[in-house]
């Protein structure tokens, strides 16, 4: 069960090698979390991630999970929920793609959309339904500022996050009053493996800062959080920029 401050005792991370996912798990293990499920495709990285969390004192189990195979989600996640209540599901998987290449290769673009959007829709629905049955829990979904307004530089990734973000807003309302809390996280540029080699955008952040913001959001039962928080105002302004001007911005 979560305590009065929203700290979960059990955590399921979808995308078990995600740096933000693991940073969040580490932070929550420092609070109340004792049981962690890391879901992802079997790999040495996934095992290493599990091992690193075990060293912090948590009981960690890895779970086979493939975002690209929505048909398997219900069974894969059902097994996790069968072991006991899950207080928080963190949907942390996603791919950035390569905008320049993906524009030339529609199938590669579709791959981005399938992981970030359709795979996430399926996993979020399965997770939300399971949380609803147990009558409590938080579903935390990693969206992105890139979904707030499509940019020339990464609109394939951005559009997939835009879809996911809109989906989560609706899901949060659908879950209102059911005891299930849905929180959308919109980080800016996060320094991780996924963004390695890219030019950091202004107001860039780190996985640990995102984790801290998630912990705060759980305590406040927020529905949407921005990391860093100043992005809320900045993106609100950017959203309203006239298009010709927006297009010329070096974003």
């Amino acid at each position, binding site marked *: *069960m*979560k*305590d*009065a*401050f*929203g*700290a979960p*005792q059990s955590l399921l991370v979808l995308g078990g090698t995600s740096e933000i996912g693991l940073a969040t798990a580490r932070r929550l293990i420092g*609070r*109340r979390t004792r049981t962690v499920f890391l879901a992802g495709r079997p790999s040495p990285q996934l095992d290493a991630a599990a091992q690193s969390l075990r060293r912090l004192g948590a009981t960690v189990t890895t779970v086979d999970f493939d975002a690209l195979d929505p048909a398997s989600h219900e069974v894969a996640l059902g097994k996790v929920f069968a072991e006991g*209540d899950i207080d928080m599901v963190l949907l942390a998987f996603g791919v950035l793609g390569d905008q320049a290449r993906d524009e030339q290769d529609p199938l590669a673009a579709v791959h981005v959309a399938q992981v970030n959007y359709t795979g996430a829709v399926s996993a979020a*629905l399965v997770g939300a*339904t399971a949380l*609803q*049955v*147990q*009558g*409590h829990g938080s579903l935390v979904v990693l969206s992105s500022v890139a979904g707030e307004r499509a940019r020339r530089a990464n609109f394939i990734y951005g559009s997939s996050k835009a879809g996911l973000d809109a989906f989560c807003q609706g899901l949060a309302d*659908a*879950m209102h*009053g*059911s*005891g*299930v809390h849905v929180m959308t996280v919109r980080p800016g540029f996060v320094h991780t493996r996924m963004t390695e080699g890219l030019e950091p955008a202004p107001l860039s952040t780190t996985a640990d800062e995102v984790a801290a913001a998630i912990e705060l959001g759980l*305590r*406040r039962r927020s529905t949407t959080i921005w990391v860093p928080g100043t992005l809320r105002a900045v993106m609100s302004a950017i959203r309203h920029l006239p298009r010709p001007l927006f297009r010329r911005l070096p974003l």
Partner: protein
Amino acid sequence: MPVPFAAPEAVPVTGWGRTAPTSALVLRPGSYEEAVRALAECGGRGAIARGLGRAYGDAAQNAGGAVLDMTGLDRIHEIDAVGGLVTCDAGVSLHRLMQVMLPLGWFVPVSPGTRYVTVGGAIGADIHGKNHHMSGSFSRHVRAIELLTGDGETRVATPEDEPDLFWATAGGMGLTGVILAATLQMLPVETSLMTVDTERATDLDDLMARLAADDHRYRYSVAWIDLLARGARTGRAVLTRGDHAPLEALPPRLRADPLAFRPASRLPAAPRFVPEGLLGRRSVGLFNEFWYRKAPRDQRGRLQKLAAFFHPLDGLPEWNRIYGRGGFVQYQFVVGYGQEEALRRIVRRIGSRRCPSFLAVLKRFGEADPGWLSFPMPGWTLALDLPATLPGLAAFLDELDDEVAAAGGRVYLAKDARMRPDVLARMYPRLDDFRELRSRYDPRRVITSDLARRLAV
């Protein structure tokens, strides 16, 4: 998924602190038969009884399962006006008992800070009042409990015939079964007024000295303590102590109807939406300063209504809303006599952190009752309330838990919404016995609550 998101009857439930909402099917049995049926049909996630929802945390929540609203069981069955024995349903409130029994010359034996609690809740939390140092906790005055256990049986437990079941149920947070009815021994009183002595204590040592010196002269004793005061004024407090006024203490105009129960008229309920942070350091600091200075330095024998003495907060319905949507947590612990240094350390720590608490109360407990998970033990108890959104509060309270446990003390489960499971076992040595009894009477684990899940009770 057959019917997506269809859960029309489940509603979010929280405790009085309004933190950690979870959803449950709320059923309101109107008879014992309906209660039995509700328990039999509650499904895999079980059921827990709920009274008037005054437990601060998740004691009367049951995520995904059933919550039995017991206020539908509200009959008073039998009154022995000579001996002061009352047999009533578990859903009868102490308010109702006062209304009925005061005119007959009987008062509830133990009254907490609110009279809007049910008899079932009072037993489940084994509540205490300002008279604990004299009269013990609520269960000391309970002669019999009628209990619907998880195996579907209705049992009668008394301290003589079924001591294990009785003392596990007293303070058992509703986890031994659904309390259906109870027999209570009431306290004889001559009037419905209190004679109250009020004095100020300039600091914590002064306060503890005054409480220790003459608590035994008063049936009721409590001290409001200013936890925001620092330095030499750390622990300054206002002591209010008193007893039921004897008939001859009343002025002639009140003697005609000395036992009338006249709670002050209640204010309109606190508004539904209160901005968060209304009760910050500044506002609470100002309030505390005012409250301390307003109190008479030394006043003897003032006549006060029962409700004003026992239940000042009941004057503001839904007062728990004043903390805003983030809610609040209560922290109440006890440390034994001889552990005064731990108490001083904790008070100093709270003061130096500038925790904005305006409902902080210090009291001395007397002899403990045998309830297995009952909170009171001989020693000092401090209760304070804090906005749940206070930064760093979670970790701070964890540190206090450790300090309390190390001093051999414990934290009150009826107020808890955040303790760690491992600390619980250190604080309540009979926890294993309690678990064993629970599995004996409830092998299918029908009776459960969010608190039980969170603390692995």
